[in-house]
């Protein structure tokens, strides 16, 4: 399966028919949704915390150039190196150069959506470097050669039986009759195999949840501890992250740390929070000897000053995804993009182009749950509506939609015609109904294959309104 955002409509239809997806999607509400709700309840005044998080991220996005310059100076002062990449290809090349200079053959990786976005792994493999994903979910999907289906739970779509089959097929050196029925057996098997990789890797690549400009530090949150073994055991540590992750200092980070895990998994804090600033000090016996940060733009700066600027506040918690009825029906792979759900719908048209990702902006019921749960108050439906308007005005919308909307607009501008039309339509629908329900219409339409439509009672809204006045 090669990811293609333009194939979303068909991929979504296929996903709806996939019985293996249903149990996973059911866990969105029972695990992520319920977890967040309980955590928010326990915190107390979560709204003030959201306001504070929004203010910090808004300040950062509108001072991004200053903060990045400060960040770079702080990293240099600590003996690290900052690399800048305008796009995915520059980012891949910068990482490859660092790895080649370090003479690296194997590189362990902590979870990083930016390295998914820039398609790093296939590029490294093509250049003779072996990337090993170490986050359990990422490791599973790397073995299966699949993209992540969720931004914080990459193997979200899989059952433990599917994971067991994957391990049996991949770990051929182990007893083929071993029991992998229990989840913990799977976890322990991966732990043993990956520990050996940590010990021998030449370099480690992680992402960053936040960057502190004042400290030149990258902050990651994990529950497994894989990000830390990735940083601390090899000689070279490379952080790959988006330019928008930078904030002023660790005090800003402390506020955002209260929002991120609660919004993501419902935890008050992730098991590990690691602040990583430069290579090891002179008195230290472990930690990397070389520290690099690759700052990736890849379309982000082009959103500044546009209707979509607020999307840069995102801290990638996945709350919008976890509460989205569209994601909840079709899952992550259907989107054919690194970022799925509402955040993908708001971000992808901006960075990939509307022609490429307009389907994502249309994949919304506008129920507004995403904006309600967003920890930094991104107006996601408003941004999706903006991309829909761009799609329409640049003539990219499907003909059926533009013609339909044109017809509606023609009538709506002529009140007499509009009133006549609605009266006729109401009467026609009544004629076609049996026992008060319309069950089919003589047009090509999937609607009636799975739903009935209540027939109008008689008079239109406008007629009733007139009578009442």
């Amino acid at each position: 399966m090669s990811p293609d955002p333009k194939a979303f409509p068909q991929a979504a239809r296929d996903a709806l028919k996939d019985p293996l997806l249903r149990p996973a999607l059911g866990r969105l509400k029972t695990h992520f949704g319920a977890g967040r709700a309980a955590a928010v309840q326990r915190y107390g005044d979560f709204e003030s915390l959201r306001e504070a998080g929004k203010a910090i991220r808004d300040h950062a996005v509108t001072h991004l150039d200053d903060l990045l310059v400060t960040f770079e100076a702080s990293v240099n002062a600590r003996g690290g190196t900052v690399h800048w990449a305008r796009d995915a290809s520059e980012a891949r090349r910068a990482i490859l150069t660092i790895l080649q200079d370090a003479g690296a053959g194997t590189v362990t990786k902590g979870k990083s959506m930016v390295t998914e976005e820039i398609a790093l792994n296939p590029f490294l493999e093509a250049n003779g470097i072996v990337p090993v994903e170490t986050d359990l979910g990422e490791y599973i999907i790397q073995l299966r050669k699949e993209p992540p289906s969720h931004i914080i739970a990459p193997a979200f779509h899989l059952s433990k039986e599917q994971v067991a089959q994957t391990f049996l097929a991949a770990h051929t050196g182990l007893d083929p009759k071993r029991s992998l029925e229990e989840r913990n057996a799977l976890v322990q098997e991966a732990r043993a195999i990956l520990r050996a990789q940590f010990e021998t890797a030449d370099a480690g690549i992680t992402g960053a949840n936040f960057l502190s400009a004042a400290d030149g530090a990258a902050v990651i949150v994990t529950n497994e501890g894989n990000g830390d073994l990735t940083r601390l055991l090899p000689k070279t540590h490379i952080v790959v992250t988006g330019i928008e992750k930078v904030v002023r200092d660790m005090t800003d980070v402390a506020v955002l740390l209260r929002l991120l895990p609660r919004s993501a998994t419902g935890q008050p804090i992730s098991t590990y929070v690691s602040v990583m600033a430069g290579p090891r000090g002179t008195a230290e016996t472990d930690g990397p000897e070389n520290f690099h940060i690759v700052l990736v733009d890849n379309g982000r700066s082009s959103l500044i000053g546009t209707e979509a600027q607020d999307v840069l506040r995102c801290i990638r918690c996945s709350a919008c995804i976890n509460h989205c009825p569209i994601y909840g029906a079709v899952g992550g792979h259907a989107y054919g993009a690194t970022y799925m759900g509402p955040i993908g719908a708001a971000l992808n048209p901006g960075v990939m182009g509307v022609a490429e990702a307009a389907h994502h902006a249309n994949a919304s019921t506008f129920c507004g749950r995403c904006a309600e749960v967003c920890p930094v108050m991104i107006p996601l439906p408003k941004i999706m509506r903006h991309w829909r308007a761009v799609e329409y005005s640049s003539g990219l919308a499907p003909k059926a939609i533009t013609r339909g909307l044109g017809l509606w607009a023609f009538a709506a501008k002529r009140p007499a015609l509009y009133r006549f039309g609605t009266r006729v339509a109401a009467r026609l629908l009544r004629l076609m109904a049996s026992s008060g329900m319309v069950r089919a219409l003589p047009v090509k339409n999937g609607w009636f294959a799975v739903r009935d439509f209540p027939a109008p009672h008689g008079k239109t809204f406008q007629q009733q309104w007139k009578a009442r006045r």
Partner: protein
Amino acid sequence: MSARDAILESIRVRRLARAPMPGIYRAPRSDGDLAEVFAKKMSAQHADVRMLDSMAEVPAAIADILRGRNMAATVHVPPGSELETLALPNVEVRRGPPGPFDAAVTRAPFAIAETGTLVYPSGKGAPASWHFRPVLEIAILRAGDVVAELEDVLAKLGPLPSTLNLVSGPSRTGDIEQTMELGAHGPKALAVLVVRH
């Protein structure tokens, strides 16, 4: 133009307005003794938390924790740390880095009550990887070193060490069917000895 300058320029030319400086945020605080709040929150995160009266009780507690987990009476202690002077009768003390089935004893210079979190700045005698290598980490914490929130640690710490680790329980993963399993890459168990005096 370099990639650096191009990115900075792209930000500058597009920016329409700047958002104001954020105000200072004050998180809600739990009432009560900070060490007690810490112990309660840390226990809720699947750690084995024990309150001790004095450092004299530490050796017996360590031996008891090892016995309780059916582990050999061997612990790894970071070379160059103040723990090297700790007398542990009947327990073999090793100085090398702990392997994936070993126990390590560490000293946490700070802890946070708000989230039940141990704070470890890396440095001399404080190797960061030791919080992730062993199967069991036994942390020694003085009750007086528990502060209310992360902001307090940052104020006490000054310039950051190369690595600052916040640890809130043993390693875990929810990556298979969103169901929590302990011991993903880091320790399967975390014991915290909170020493009152």
